[in-house]
């Protein structure tokens, strides 16, 4: 294993658990079903979460719908932006690396993503990205600090209520994901083994 990365990056990082995942040979049919995508049996992160299969299954199905449901609403790039901004603000280098790559891929705005990672959530962005980053940051606060002004800014940037709801769900979900990835193990450089 190589040393954990010290800064936010779009590199493909690895992730190592601090406590013992289930071994692949220990996975029962119920565990494999909880993984949803069976290829995830190769990932120590998902094999660790498989210790409680009920909530892992719910987590994964919730995640997939929030990010992949293409029936209207917010474009994928901006859902990934909300995930990246939340991860940047909470301090999850691993999550931010994965979702910054997705935001770059779907949004084709690598410089804007790069600036978010390098300079942080206050970095200059256009009106739509500014509104999404600000709403994500406000929602990440404890207690949540989202106000009507944040929603007005999202509307002013052209989003309808479904798109706003998508942004809020993507941001809210990463509060869940960030805490798991930050507290059960750590990123290693390089090499991608899991997606979160």
């Amino acid at each position: 294993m190589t040393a954990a990365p010290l800064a936010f990056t779009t590199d493909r990082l690895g992730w190592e658990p601090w406590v013992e995942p289930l071994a692949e040979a220990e996975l029962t049919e119920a565990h494999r079903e909880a993984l949803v995508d069976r290829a995830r049996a190769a990932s120590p992160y998902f094999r660790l979460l498989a210790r409680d299969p009920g909530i892992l299954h719910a987590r994964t199905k919730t995640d997939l719908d929030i990010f992949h449901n293409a029936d209207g609403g917010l474009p994928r790039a901006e859902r990934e932006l909300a995930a990246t901004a939340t991860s940047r603000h909470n301090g999850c280098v691993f999550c931010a690396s994965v979702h910054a790559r997705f935001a770059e891929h779907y949004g084709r705005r690598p410089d804007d993503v790069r600036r978010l990672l390098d300079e942080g959530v206050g970095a200059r962005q256009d009106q739509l990205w500014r509104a999404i980053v600000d709403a994500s940051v406000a929602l990440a606060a404890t207690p949540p600090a989202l106000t009507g002004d944040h929603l007005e800014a999202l509307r002013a940037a052209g989003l309808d209520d479904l798109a706003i709801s998508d942004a809020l769900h993507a941001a809210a979900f990463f509060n869940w994901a960030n805490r798991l990835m930050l507290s059960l193990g750590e990123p290693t450089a390089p090499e991608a083994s899991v997606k979160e």
Partner: protein
Amino acid sequence: MSTDIIDRLAGIEPGSPLDGLRRRRPDAREHAQRGYLALFPQDTGGGTGEVSLVERYAVAAFVAGLHRDPASARHYDDLLSAHDPDLAAAVSAEVEAATATGPYGIYPEGPLAAESVPGPVHRVGDRAALGERLAAALEHAHLLVFRPREADPQALRALARAGWSTTGVVTLSQLVSFLTFQIRVVAGLRLLRTTQKGPRP
């Protein structure tokens, strides 16, 4: 009234615009509810694994209290109070003592150190009222809620010393982390509901 917990806490009525909006993401709606029921099973005939139901309610009441969303805080406090009113009082006292504004935390030395934001580390006051196992769980929950960037292997070792198995640690971590999602979805949807402009022409 909806039986969906997010609908109930956010004040979303069946057939309302927000209900329609949630149903455009049917899996997210269904599995957010299934996640809630997996963590807080209503029929405990099959047991609750390595974390008892009252422990789950106690951690949830603490986490929801820290978020200061009245509807969510009341919901989990009510669940705990119905099972163990003395414990509910002890958890309420911890919430009072543990209030903070997050996220904060210290980054390791390196380029992110300039972004470090120091903040309080919560230590449970009345450990006897909670028991060592629950006291350790609330301290870990406080870490996850407010300063997740400071999480480290020592935090997991503290849980192990207090009697938490590895599977119990996974359930506890999921419970706290899930609630940070659920409470934010509730807050966001409620705000969206109360600021809605109505149908566009």
